[in-house]
Protein backbone atom coordinates (compact mmCIF):
# COMPACT_ATOMS: atom_id res chain seq x y z
CA UNK A 1 0.00 0.00 0.00
CA UNK A 2 1.28 3.45 -0.93
CA UNK A 3 0.38 6.54 1.07
CA UNK A 4 0.46 10.15 -0.03
CA UNK A 5 0.69 12.75 2.72
CA UNK A 6 -0.41 16.13 1.42
CA UNK A 7 1.02 18.52 3.91
CA UNK A 8 -0.08 22.11 4.22
CA UNK A 9 1.48 24.57 6.63
CA UNK A 10 2.33 28.19 5.83
CA UNK A 11 5.38 28.27 8.15
CA UNK A 12 6.46 24.68 8.52
CA UNK A 13 10.00 25.49 9.70
CA UNK A 14 8.60 27.00 12.88
CA UNK A 15 6.29 24.11 13.65
CA UNK A 16 7.82 21.65 16.10
CA UNK A 17 5.00 19.17 15.61
CA UNK A 18 5.27 19.17 11.80
CA UNK A 19 9.05 18.76 11.94
CA UNK A 20 8.60 15.87 14.37
CA UNK A 21 6.10 14.15 12.06
CA UNK A 22 8.28 14.67 8.96
CA UNK A 23 11.24 13.09 10.77
CA UNK A 24 9.02 10.21 11.90
CA UNK A 25 8.39 8.90 8.41
CA UNK A 26 10.51 5.87 7.60
CA UNK A 27 12.01 5.71 4.12
CA UNK A 28 10.83 2.15 3.65
CA UNK A 29 7.25 2.89 4.59
CA UNK A 30 6.03 3.55 1.04
CA UNK A 31 5.04 7.03 2.08
CA UNK A 32 5.32 10.14 -0.11
CA UNK A 33 5.47 13.45 1.74
CA UNK A 34 4.20 16.30 -0.38
CA UNK A 35 4.43 19.78 1.11
CA UNK A 36 2.20 22.14 -0.86
CA UNK A 37 3.66 25.49 0.26
CA UNK A 38 7.17 24.35 -0.68
CA UNK A 39 6.05 22.88 -3.99
CA UNK A 40 3.92 25.88 -4.97
CA UNK A 41 5.25 29.04 -3.29
CA UNK A 42 3.42 31.12 -5.90
CA UNK A 43 0.17 29.20 -5.33
CA UNK A 44 -0.07 28.02 -8.95
CA UNK A 45 -0.87 24.33 -8.82
CA UNK A 46 0.19 21.82 -11.48
CA UNK A 47 -3.10 19.99 -11.96
CA UNK A 48 -1.77 17.05 -13.99
CA UNK A 49 1.11 16.43 -11.62
CA UNK A 50 -1.19 16.43 -8.59
CA UNK A 51 -3.77 14.15 -10.18
CA UNK A 52 -1.00 11.74 -11.20
CA UNK A 53 0.28 11.70 -7.63
CA UNK A 54 -3.22 10.81 -6.42
CA UNK A 55 -3.50 8.00 -8.95
CA UNK A 56 -0.20 6.49 -7.80
CA UNK A 57 -1.28 6.15 -4.16
CA UNK A 58 -3.88 4.12 -2.28
CA UNK A 59 -4.23 6.17 0.89
CA UNK A 60 -4.48 9.95 0.73
CA UNK A 61 -3.79 11.97 3.88
CA UNK A 62 -4.29 15.69 4.45
CA UNK A 63 -1.95 16.86 7.20
CA UNK A 64 -2.37 20.39 8.51
CA UNK A 65 -2.76 22.64 11.54
CA UNK A 66 -6.45 23.00 12.34
CA UNK A 67 -6.65 26.80 12.02
CA UNK A 68 -10.13 28.21 12.55
CA UNK A 69 -11.65 24.74 12.20
CA UNK A 70 -10.36 24.28 8.68
CA UNK A 71 -7.25 23.80 6.56
CA UNK A 72 -4.71 26.47 5.55
CA UNK A 73 -5.71 28.35 2.36
CA UNK A 74 -3.38 26.51 -0.04
CA UNK A 75 -4.90 23.14 0.81
CA UNK A 76 -8.39 24.49 0.12
CA UNK A 77 -7.10 25.97 -3.15
CA UNK A 78 -5.54 22.56 -3.97
CA UNK A 79 -8.94 20.90 -3.52
CA UNK A 80 -10.62 23.47 -5.77
CA UNK A 81 -8.00 22.97 -8.48
CA UNK A 82 -7.27 19.24 -8.33
CA UNK A 83 -10.53 17.50 -7.41
CA UNK A 84 -12.14 18.27 -10.75
CA UNK A 85 -15.25 16.96 -12.44
CA UNK A 86 -14.66 13.84 -14.59
CA UNK A 87 -11.66 13.05 -12.37
CA UNK A 88 -12.90 13.09 -8.78
CA UNK A 89 -16.67 13.17 -9.36
CA UNK A 90 -19.33 13.39 -12.05
CA UNK A 91 -19.42 11.48 -15.33
CA UNK A 92 -16.46 9.05 -15.37
CA UNK A 93 -15.14 10.86 -12.34
CA UNK A 94 -14.23 7.68 -10.55
CA UNK A 95 -10.44 7.98 -10.36
CA UNK A 96 -10.38 8.11 -6.58
CA UNK A 97 -12.94 5.36 -5.99
CA UNK A 98 -11.79 2.74 -3.51
CA UNK A 99 -8.92 4.79 -2.12
CA UNK A 100 -8.73 5.73 1.56
CA UNK A 101 -8.81 9.28 2.84
CA UNK A 102 -7.58 10.42 6.24
CA UNK A 103 -6.69 13.57 8.17
CA UNK A 104 -3.74 14.29 10.42
CA UNK A 105 -4.78 17.32 12.46
CA UNK A 106 -2.47 19.36 14.63
CA UNK A 107 -4.57 21.08 17.24
CA UNK A 108 -3.37 23.64 19.78
CA UNK A 109 -6.20 23.22 22.25
CA UNK A 110 -6.77 20.28 24.60
CA UNK A 111 -8.92 17.35 23.52
CA UNK A 112 -11.59 17.89 26.18
CA UNK A 113 -12.41 21.33 24.72
CA UNK A 114 -13.72 19.66 21.57
CA UNK A 115 -16.73 18.17 23.32
CA UNK A 116 -20.18 19.59 23.79
CA UNK A 117 -19.81 21.86 26.80
CA UNK A 118 -16.06 22.30 26.14
CA UNK A 119 -14.52 25.63 25.23
CA UNK A 120 -14.79 24.94 21.48
CA UNK A 121 -18.20 23.34 21.86
CA UNK A 122 -18.11 21.11 18.80
CA UNK A 123 -16.45 17.76 18.24
CA UNK A 124 -13.75 17.08 15.65
CA UNK A 125 -16.24 14.77 13.91
CA UNK A 126 -18.64 17.69 13.51
CA UNK A 127 -16.01 20.22 12.46
CA UNK A 128 -14.48 17.94 9.82
CA UNK A 129 -17.77 17.29 8.02
CA UNK A 130 -16.60 19.01 4.77
CA UNK A 131 -13.71 16.52 4.52
CA UNK A 132 -16.06 13.61 5.17
CA UNK A 133 -18.26 14.94 2.38
CA UNK A 134 -15.25 15.10 0.02
CA UNK A 135 -14.53 11.42 0.78
CA UNK A 136 -18.16 10.51 0.14
CA UNK A 137 -18.42 12.43 -3.11
CA UNK A 138 -15.16 11.06 -4.49
CA UNK A 139 -15.87 7.46 -3.45
CA UNK A 140 -13.03 7.23 -0.94
CA UNK A 141 -13.27 5.46 2.41
CA UNK A 142 -12.98 7.99 5.21
CA UNK A 143 -10.56 6.96 7.96
CA UNK A 144 -10.82 8.08 11.56
CA UNK A 145 -8.73 11.25 11.83
CA UNK A 146 -5.37 11.19 13.59
CA UNK A 147 -5.67 14.20 15.88
CA UNK A 148 -2.69 15.53 17.80
CA UNK A 149 -3.71 17.80 20.64
CA UNK A 150 -1.24 20.15 22.31
CA UNK A 151 1.92 18.56 20.99
CA UNK A 152 4.17 20.95 22.91
CA UNK A 153 2.85 19.73 26.25
CA UNK A 154 3.49 16.05 25.58
CA UNK A 155 6.08 14.17 27.61
CA UNK A 156 9.01 12.50 25.85
CA UNK A 157 7.36 9.11 26.30
CA UNK A 158 4.07 10.38 24.85
CA UNK A 159 5.94 11.79 21.85
CA UNK A 160 7.61 8.43 21.24
CA UNK A 161 4.27 6.66 21.34
CA UNK A 162 2.86 9.29 18.99
CA UNK A 163 5.71 8.66 16.54
CA UNK A 164 4.87 4.96 16.27
CA UNK A 165 1.10 5.57 16.16
CA UNK A 166 1.65 8.05 13.32
CA UNK A 167 3.80 5.59 11.36
CA UNK A 168 1.06 3.01 11.81
CA UNK A 169 -1.67 5.46 10.75
CA UNK A 170 0.21 6.00 7.49
CA UNK A 171 1.00 2.37 6.76
CA UNK A 172 -1.33 -0.05 8.56
CA UNK A 173 -4.32 -1.50 6.77
CA UNK A 174 -6.39 -1.41 9.96
CA UNK A 175 -4.74 1.06 12.28
CA UNK A 176 -7.04 0.23 15.20
CA UNK A 177 -6.57 -3.52 15.26
CA UNK A 178 -4.27 -5.00 17.88
CA UNK A 179 -3.44 -7.92 15.62
CA UNK A 180 -2.41 -5.57 12.78
CA UNK A 181 -0.21 -3.61 15.20
CA UNK A 182 1.45 -6.84 16.34
CA UNK A 183 2.20 -7.91 12.78
CA UNK A 184 3.61 -4.47 12.01
CA UNK A 185 5.75 -4.52 15.14
CA UNK A 186 7.10 -8.01 14.44
CA UNK A 187 8.21 -6.89 11.00
CA UNK A 188 9.96 -3.83 12.45
CA UNK A 189 11.68 -5.90 15.15
CA UNK A 190 12.93 -8.42 12.62
CA UNK A 191 14.54 -5.59 10.65
CA UNK A 192 16.04 -3.87 13.71
CA UNK A 193 19.62 -2.64 13.41
CA UNK A 194 21.77 -3.38 16.44
CA UNK A 195 24.48 -0.85 15.52
CA UNK A 196 22.73 1.80 17.58
CA UNK A 197 22.21 -0.29 20.74
CA UNK A 198 25.42 -0.82 22.71
CA UNK A 199 24.03 -3.77 24.67
CA UNK A 200 25.49 -7.24 24.04
CA UNK A 201 22.32 -9.13 24.83
CA UNK A 202 20.07 -6.86 22.71
CA UNK A 203 19.46 -9.51 19.97
CA UNK A 204 18.49 -12.03 22.66
CA UNK A 205 16.06 -9.59 24.30
CA UNK A 206 14.47 -8.76 20.95
CA UNK A 207 14.10 -12.48 20.16
CA UNK A 208 12.35 -12.90 23.50
CA UNK A 209 10.06 -9.97 22.73
CA UNK A 210 9.19 -11.46 19.33
CA UNK A 211 8.40 -14.82 20.95
CA UNK A 212 6.24 -13.18 23.57
CA UNK A 213 4.27 -11.17 21.00
CA UNK A 214 3.67 -14.36 19.00
CA UNK A 215 2.80 -16.54 22.00
CA UNK A 216 0.42 -13.92 23.36
CA UNK A 217 -1.33 -13.76 19.99
CA UNK A 218 -1.85 -17.54 20.02
CA UNK A 219 -3.27 -17.33 23.53
CA UNK A 220 -5.55 -14.42 22.62
CA UNK A 221 -6.89 -16.24 19.56
CA UNK A 222 -7.48 -19.37 21.62
CA UNK A 223 -9.33 -17.45 24.33
CA UNK A 224 -11.49 -15.79 21.68
CA UNK A 225 -12.26 -19.21 20.19
CA UNK A 226 -13.41 -20.56 23.57
CA UNK A 227 -15.57 -17.48 24.20
CA UNK A 228 -17.18 -17.79 20.78
CA UNK A 229 -17.85 -21.47 21.51
CA UNK A 230 -19.74 -20.64 24.72
CA UNK A 231 -21.60 -17.81 23.03
CA UNK A 232 -23.28 -20.26 20.64
Amino acid at each position, binding site marked *: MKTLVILSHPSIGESGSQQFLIQ*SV*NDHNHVTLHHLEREYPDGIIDLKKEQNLLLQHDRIIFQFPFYWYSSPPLLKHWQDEVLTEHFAYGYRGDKLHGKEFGLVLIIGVGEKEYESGGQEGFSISELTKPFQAVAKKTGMTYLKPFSIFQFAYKTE*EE*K*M*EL*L*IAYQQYLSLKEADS*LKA*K*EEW*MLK*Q*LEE*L*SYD*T*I*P*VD*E*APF*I*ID*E*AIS*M*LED*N*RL*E*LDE*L*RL*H*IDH*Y*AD
Partner: protein
Amino acid sequence: MESVEWLVEQLDKLVKESRDYKQKALLLSTKKLIQEQEKRKEQLSGELDGRLWSPGSWRE
Protein backbone atom coordinates in the same frame (compact mmCIF):
# COMPACT_ATOMS: atom_id res chain seq x y z
CA MET B 1 4.00 -13.29 34.66
CA GLU B 2 7.57 -13.16 35.91
CA SER B 3 8.94 -13.38 32.40
CA VAL B 4 6.76 -10.46 31.30
CA GLU B 5 8.21 -8.34 34.06
CA TRP B 6 11.71 -9.40 33.12
CA LEU B 7 11.12 -8.58 29.46
CA VAL B 8 9.58 -5.19 30.29
CA GLU B 9 12.66 -4.34 32.35
CA GLN B 10 14.99 -5.45 29.56
CA LEU B 11 13.11 -3.40 26.96
CA ASP B 12 13.27 -0.36 29.25
CA LYS B 13 17.01 -0.86 29.40
CA LEU B 14 17.26 -0.98 25.60
CA VAL B 15 15.12 2.18 25.29
CA LYS B 16 17.58 3.93 27.60
CA GLU B 17 20.67 2.66 25.83
CA SER B 18 19.62 3.04 22.19
CA ARG B 19 21.25 5.97 20.40
CA ASP B 20 18.52 6.31 17.79
CA TYR B 21 15.33 8.21 18.64
CA LYS B 22 13.06 6.27 16.29
CA GLN B 23 14.48 3.03 17.61
CA LYS B 24 13.83 4.13 21.19
CA ALA B 25 10.23 4.86 20.19
CA LEU B 26 9.90 1.43 18.58
CA LEU B 27 11.28 -0.38 21.64
CA LEU B 28 9.05 1.58 23.98
CA SER B 29 6.02 0.76 21.83
CA THR B 30 6.99 -2.92 21.80
CA LYS B 31 6.84 -2.87 25.58
CA LYS B 32 3.47 -1.09 25.53
CA LEU B 33 2.12 -3.57 22.99
CA ILE B 34 3.11 -6.55 25.14
CA GLN B 35 1.45 -4.89 28.13
CA GLU B 36 -1.68 -4.31 26.05
CA GLN B 37 -1.71 -8.00 25.06
CA GLU B 38 -1.41 -8.98 28.71
CA LYS B 39 -4.35 -6.74 29.57
CA ARG B 40 -6.47 -8.23 26.78
CA LYS B 41 -5.60 -11.75 27.91
CA GLU B 42 -6.79 -10.88 31.39
CA GLN B 43 -10.01 -9.36 30.04
CA LEU B 44 -10.76 -12.33 27.79
CA SER B 45 -10.01 -14.80 30.59
CA GLY B 46 -12.44 -12.87 32.77
CA GLU B 47 -15.05 -12.98 30.04
CA LEU B 48 -14.56 -16.72 29.58
CA ASP B 49 -14.89 -17.29 33.33
CA GLY B 50 -18.08 -15.25 33.30
CA ARG B 51 -19.55 -17.36 30.53
CA LEU B 52 -18.56 -20.64 32.20
CA TRP B 53 -20.32 -19.53 35.38
CA SER B 54 -23.41 -18.27 33.64
CA PRO B 55 -26.49 -20.16 34.98
CA GLY B 56 -27.78 -20.40 31.42
CA SER B 57 -25.11 -22.95 30.61
CA TRP B 58 -25.74 -25.12 33.70
CA ARG B 59 -28.92 -26.67 32.39
CA GLU B 60 -27.33 -29.34 30.23
